[in-house]
């Protein structure tokens, strides 16, 4: 009987994703002529990727990486993602109020808030439709 409620990711996904992000940060900073920040962000994200790759003996790391994820970890992931989403939404609302209070138009927080709201409603509708 299948007891896993999601497909575990490869142990390589998160390390490679971190490194790819580091490379993207490096290119962006380099193009912006911020050479110091470019090298720092590349080293930081590559180091993080290495830590994820080599830290497999820790359950927390395997849970984050996805290769040690089962239904319990999947539930933690959903709850943690929802909590992080709430934090971001509260921050966006706060920043909108701050910007408006200082006579500005609220960009880009208004757009981010609208995107968040639309994404939530669309996700809800799609999930409801899929049953």
């Amino acid at each position, binding site marked *: 009987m299948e*007891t896993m*409620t999601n497909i575990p990711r490869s142990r390589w996904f998160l390390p490679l994703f971190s490194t790819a992000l580091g490379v993207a940060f490096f290119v962006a900073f380099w193009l912006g002529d911020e050479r110091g920040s470019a090298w720092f962000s590349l080293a930081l994200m590559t180091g993080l990727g290495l830590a994820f790759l080599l830290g497999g003996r820790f*359950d927390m790391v*395997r849970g984050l990486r996805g290769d040690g994820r*089962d239904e*319990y*970890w999947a539930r933690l992931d959903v709850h943690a993602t929802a909590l992080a989403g709430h934090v971001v939404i509260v921050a966006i609302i706060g920043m909108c109020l701050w910007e408006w209070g200082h006579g500005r138009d609220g960009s880009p927080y208004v757009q981010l808030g609208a995107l968040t709201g639309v994404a939530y409603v669309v996700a809800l509708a799609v999930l409801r439709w899929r049953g």
Partner: protein
Amino acid sequence: MHNVVRALRLERGLSQQELAEAMAVSRQTINSIERDRYTPSLPLAIALARFFGLPVEEVFDGNHDEHP
């Protein structure tokens, strides 16, 4: 949900890790179930009951669910 997984596991002389491997889940999952901090999915609950050779209702007691 209240359950007797810990008692059944100890009766059989199994560690949490061994039971976790038999169920293809993490040790934390077994630990959380035993401590009534996590209610397993129906497939996992059935798999646990079958593993111990008991009906699901003898392993898990829905009457003591903290979220009835």
